[in-house]
């Protein structure tokens, strides 16, 4: 395996969820503004004061600093493992898969982080992150009963796929149009 890269949190050891809202336009944010979309679209008068938390991780040959807009609850508990997984598995250079894969793109990783911050709850087991050969990334969970994947390609909408080992039933589709379905699956992880 590649050398382990640790995610670091600028003097902020913990992370917390913001108001949980699933947003239909998650794919439109600038690449370095992570975990903050709910703040942009959900700003009631009683919204808590937002403070930025910088999160740094190794993306291939580069150290990337992302900003999380914390509303007082800190970073979600899955963040460290997800960023470490992302760092370990980043696809570096064209052909990183020994065939013709495109390098992992930061915007795909950021998009995935935003999705995860919107749909995971604090008790959800952190997913493993794997690179896609089109430059995208995928979050995946494998338990004794289900395989579940969230696929963020570099082109096209974010998708999900679920396979139930007991029933051999498959579910797949676009994440934005199946929020309740995805929430149910995540609840069973």
């Amino acid at each position, binding site marked *: *395996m*590649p050398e382990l890269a640790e995610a670091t949190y600028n003097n902020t050891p913990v992370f917390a969820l913001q108001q949980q809202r699933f947003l239909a336009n998650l794919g439109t944010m600038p690449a370095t503004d992570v975990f903050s979309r709910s703040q942009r679209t959900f700003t009631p008068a009683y919204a808590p004061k937002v403070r930025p938390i910088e999160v740094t991780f190794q993306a291939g040959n580069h150290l990337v600093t992302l900003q999380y807009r914390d509303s007082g609850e800190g970073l979600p508990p899955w963040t460290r493992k997800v960023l470490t997984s992302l760092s*370990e*598995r*980043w*696809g570096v250079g064209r052909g*990183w*898969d*020994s*065939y*013709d894969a495109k390098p992992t793109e930061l915007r795909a990783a950021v998009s995935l982080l935003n999705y995860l911050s919107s749909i995971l709850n604090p008790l959800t087991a952190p997913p*493993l992150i*794997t*690179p*896609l*050969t089109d430059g995208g990334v*995928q979050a*995946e969970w*494998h*338990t*004794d009963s289900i*395989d579940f*994947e969230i*696929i963020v390609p570099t082109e096209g909408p974010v*998708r999900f*796929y679920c*396979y139930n080992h007991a029933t051999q039933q*498959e579910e*797949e589709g676009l994440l934005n149009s199946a929020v309740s379905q995805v929430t149910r699956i995540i609840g069973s992880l």
Partner: protein
Amino acid sequence: MADDPRKDDPTILDSDRLFRRVKPNQLVRLPDGSFRPSSDVFKNLEMSVNIESLMVGRSPEDTLKGYEDCSLTSVTAGAVRQRGPQFPIVKDNAPPNDPAHGLVLGKKPDSFGSAMARVHQWVVAPK
């Protein structure tokens, strides 16, 4: 793909194994501690493989020549065909290509990649 004139090659038998390299960052650890390839390993539009029956005088491990950090997995041509005719398997061994080289064509849904990941067999397992 609809306009692609290439058709499934019936001389590639269902029992033929198709070999594909897997990088360490494409490995997924399962609850029992074993590894499987990420489903994306099997989702390229033109999925490059080595076809067992064309590797005359060569071992499957020869696919790893020059890629010693990779594992080697296999699926059978029959397993690919079970997912439907939209995934034709063709030879792609005109020089300068590897004489054993082939392609699994077609846009593959996520269910295809996951199905292959469930039925795959390691030839050279991850270390």
